[in-house]
């Protein structure tokens, strides 16, 4: 293949690296009103009164908006296909504020300073209510976080707002009681993951203006342009046709921008004032008033026989969705459904879950989306099982691993058509030097090297829901415009989709132009999330490319007076017999001809939605150095072996994997959103919430064991999310191997190691 499976540079690489203005705030008109939001200082309170008179009188202030002035349509900010599984539990501004940071009033002024002064001049009288922060205590707590009468759910999600229960459910296959009755060895442990911040470098930002036809234009750093259109329409109570959404280059998302965060405030201001406005979140605001990863408490019960056959798995998840239900009912499902199928040989599996509302910031989407939390729990439990069986944890996995051709009851009954996970494990074992380092090796009086491993799976899009349309147009010099609605957030999807188009259309990459996403022009796409873009949108590219070739052949047949069935297409020409022969026309000549006189616009649109979501797989191996005196853990070497089907662009796939692994290391060792007893977030900056710096990271080595997925474009599955899941359980395993301390909560700090060692001494 000329383009697919090649490490082609990203189309926007040079422009972005050399600093060309391409992001939302670079494009905002200079005369935008500056939008700022007054936020609740209380975790739970009712607004008795707001006095905005003084603020409105200040110089430069264009408007002050409170809960009295906003539309009363409840909605969810989660970017999901309609009808959304997340509850409609929000207003743009509500009388009840449910976490420290919940919006209370919106201010727009000519300058930032003026807006800041206006915020200070607003007087709010709060009736403070008793908050609840622990999800276990929140269930059936006297404080009801969503007492509103117009609370609405679109689906049966096991929801009861009067109990602070956002969602609940149960799944089982096989006879679990029998599996445990037959077990020789069992594990029963509870694991806890924490809220994390996505921490993309570009904070949330949006600007809006009314166009010449009085339509609201929203330019925003988003992963979900079409969902922004539909949620904004609902929240503002205006028809979708009155809204246009444009996505420029965006400074990453990792799921954070799969939720509306900054869009509605300037949209409302522009609608009210008729003036352009913009809102740029500070980093602090990005931390305290967006969405974080769902913190989860997961109990895992495993049953196995003496030979190491896993007989039964029971996972019970309690997820904290915070003040609002964004992505709450959906993330929790992945903690079980994208973990247990790894051990598909188990005779019985059971998954039970509850999602609780609390008075912390709303949780939302973050790369891995629940699978990450579930992987930490199940993989840690598998490592504990291996220890109890006195078995090498890799052998335990190989013995119980799901294999190609199997039907997976825990994975929506899908059949697994591509999987090289066993090869991933074997190769990683070799690369990390497992046999020489397992379980550990003392390298000095105070330092130990140890290895640990974990495996994982994810999905490729949401089956039967994610929809991607693609249009390819032949332009009049014989180049093509590739129009997509998927949102490149830095991952390089514009590039890999162009690679696929060039492959199908047999042309050079420079003949493919990828246009930016604009809901007025781009074909519909649910957006870039759930690891869907390569797999779902990529398939649409192939379909559209093939359809366009058919159309070019038909058109050429008329010109050449030939039967379309006799014509061939080789990328540069359409011909019968030989491209240099008499019955031949170049694509360029055809395109020119179509642009003159009685011509035609040749364009093909195709849509794809997949009935299946083939899982990518990964095996991760950590080689750590542990300081027995200080407890400090340094990841010296991390090996990740990935089965993402065919990597469309091996360079970009590698960087996805490296980046995901490093985020996973941060989550494992120090990333941790903490709240004080009043519900105020205590680490709302990069000074306090540390993401890994390059000094924190040792070697990261990634290799591919590529399977071929028959339902994917050129055999591809997804890569974007699966890569974040293994570090936490692999490092936990390595810590246990190094010093015998088993840590069942994240992050795993040096202090935890030391306290664990002290406890062992006692």
């Amino acid at each position, binding site marked *: 293949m000329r383009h697919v499976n090649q*490490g082609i*540079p*990203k189309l*926007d*690489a*040079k422009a*972005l*690296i*050399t*600093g*060309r*203005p*391409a*992001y939302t705030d*670079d494009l905002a008109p200079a005369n935008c009103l500056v939008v700022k939001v007054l936020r609740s200082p209380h975790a739970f309170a009712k607004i008795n009164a707001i006095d905005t008179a003084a603020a409105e009188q200040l110089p430069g202030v264009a408007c002050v908006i409170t809960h009295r002035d906003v539309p009363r349509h409840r909605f969810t900010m989660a970017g999901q296909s309609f009808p959304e599984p997340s509850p409609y539990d929000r207003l743009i501004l509500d009388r009840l504020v449910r976490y420290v940071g919940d919006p209370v009033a919106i201010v727009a002024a000519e300058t930032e300073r003026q807006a800041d002064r206006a915020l200070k001049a607003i007087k709010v009288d709060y009736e403070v209510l008793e908050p609840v922060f622990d999800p276990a205590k929140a269930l059936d707590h006297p404080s009801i976080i969503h007492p509103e009468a117009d609370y609405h759910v679109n689906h049966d999600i096991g929801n009861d707002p009067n109990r602070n229960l956002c969602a609940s459910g149960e799944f089982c296959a096989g006879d679990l009681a029998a599996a445990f009755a037959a077990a020789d060895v069992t594990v029963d442990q509870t694991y806890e993951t924490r809220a994390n911040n*996505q*921490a*993309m*470098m*570009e*904070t949330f930002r949006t600007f809006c203006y009314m166009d010449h036809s009085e339509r609201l234009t929203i330019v925003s750093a988003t992963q979900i342009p079409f969902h922004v259109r539909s949620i904004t329409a609902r929240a503002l109570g205006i028809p979708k046709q009155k809204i246009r959404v444009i996505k420029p*280059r*965006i*400074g*990453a998302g*990792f799921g954070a921008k799969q939720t509306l965060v900054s869009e509605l405030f300037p949209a409302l201001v522009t609608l009210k004032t008729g003036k352009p406005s913009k809102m740029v979140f*500070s*980093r*602090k605001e990005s931390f305290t008033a967006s969405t974080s990863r769902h913190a989860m408490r997961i109990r895992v019960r495993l049953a196995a026989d003496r030979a190491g056959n896993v007989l039964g798995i029971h996972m019970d998840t309690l997820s904290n969705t915070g003040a609002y239900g964004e992505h709450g009912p959906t993330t929790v499902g992945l903690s079980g459904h994208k973990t247990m199928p790894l051990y598909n040989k188990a005779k019985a599996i059971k998954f039970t879950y509850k999602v609780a509302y609390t008075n912390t910031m709303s949780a939302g989407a973050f790369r891995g989306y629940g699978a990450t939390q579930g992987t930490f729990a199940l993989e840690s439990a598998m490592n504990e099982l291996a220890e109890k069986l006195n078995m090498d944890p890799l052998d335990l996995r190989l013995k119980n691993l799901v294999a190609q051709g199997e039907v997976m009851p825990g994975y929506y009954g899908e059949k697994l058509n591509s999987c090289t996970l066993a090869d991933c494990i074997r190769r990683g074992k070799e690369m990390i030097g497992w046999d020489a380092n397992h379980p550990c090796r003392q390298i000095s009086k105070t330092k130990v090297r140890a290895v640990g491993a974990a495996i994982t799976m994810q999905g490729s899009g949401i089956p039967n829901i994610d929809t991607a349309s693609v249009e390819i147009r032949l332009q009049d010099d014989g180049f093509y415009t590739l129009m997509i609605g998927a949102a490149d*957030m*830095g*991952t*390089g999807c514009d590039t890999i989709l162009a690679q696929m188009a060039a492959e199908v259309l047999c042309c050079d990459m420079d003949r493919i132009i990828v246009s930016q996403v604009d809901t007025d022009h781009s074909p519909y796409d649910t957006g870039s999330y759930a690891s869907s873009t390569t797999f779902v949108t990529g398939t649409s590219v192939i379909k559209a490319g093939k359809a366009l070739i058919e159309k070019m052949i038909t058109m050429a047949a008329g010109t050449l007076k030939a039967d379309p069935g006799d014509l061939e297409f080789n990328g540069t020409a359409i011909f019968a017999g030989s491209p240099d022969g008499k019955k031949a026309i170049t694509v360029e000549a055809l395109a020119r001809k179509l642009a003159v006189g009685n011509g035609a616009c040749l364009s093909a649109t195709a849509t794809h939605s997949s009935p299946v979501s083939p899982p990518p797989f990964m095996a991760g191996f950590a080689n750590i150095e542990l300081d027995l005196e200080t407890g400090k853990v340094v990841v010296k070497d991390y090996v990740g072996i990935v089965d993402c089907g065919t990597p469309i*662009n091996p*360079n*970009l796939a*590698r*960087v996805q994997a*490296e*980046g*995901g*692994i*490093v*985020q996973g290391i941060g989550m494992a060792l120090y990333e941790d959103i903490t709240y004080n007893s009043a519900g105020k977030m205590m680490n709302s*900056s*990069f*000074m306090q919430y540390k*993401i*890994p*710096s*390059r*000094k924190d*990271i040792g*070697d*990261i080595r990634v290799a591919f064991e590529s399977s071929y997925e028959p339902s994917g474009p050129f055999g591809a599955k997804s890569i974007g999310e699966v890569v974040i899941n293994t570090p936490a359980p692999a490092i936990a395993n390595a810590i246990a191997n190094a010093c015998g301390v088993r840590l069942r909560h994240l992050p795993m700090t040096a202090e935890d190691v030391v306290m664990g060692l002290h406890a062992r001494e006692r």
Partner: protein
Amino acid sequence: MQLKNFSISCKINGRTYEENIAPDRTLIEFLRGLGFLSVKQGCDTSNCGLCTVWLDGTPVLSCSMLAARANGRAITTIEGVQEEATAFAGFMAAQGADQCGFCSPGLVMNILAMERELDDPTPEDIKHYLAGNLCRCTGYASQMRAIEAYLAAKTAKTAAATTAAPAAPAEGGA
């Protein structure tokens, strides 16, 4: 007390600018206001390094410096070193190390400063010098490959130029 604007005269990318600015205007606000839109801000606590520019050739955080302090001094943004930035961009792109690109201009400015300040840096030296440039997309590994390849190509080019030049008569060996 009345607000007193400050008259500033400074060179930006070789051109002199004379402006009347608010006394508490930060350098990044000043630069973006003049249209130097490459300069990005990723935090409000001086931790991310995205806003890196040069002050008299030294890398500094433009979010944390008052523009008034640039009076009489020379500022360089990536718009002023496009040739070098483009050369480096080729090495980044070859690795796919650019990703979202939002941190790239600040990173490039610090890499080019490092190249001027350090001779023959080891991988540890490079990590140390660039530690203040955060990136959430890449995990840094691909950036490191790009930087090492870029520095190696520069060294090779310099070596080739030295070899090609007529050698000075050797006295007592080299």
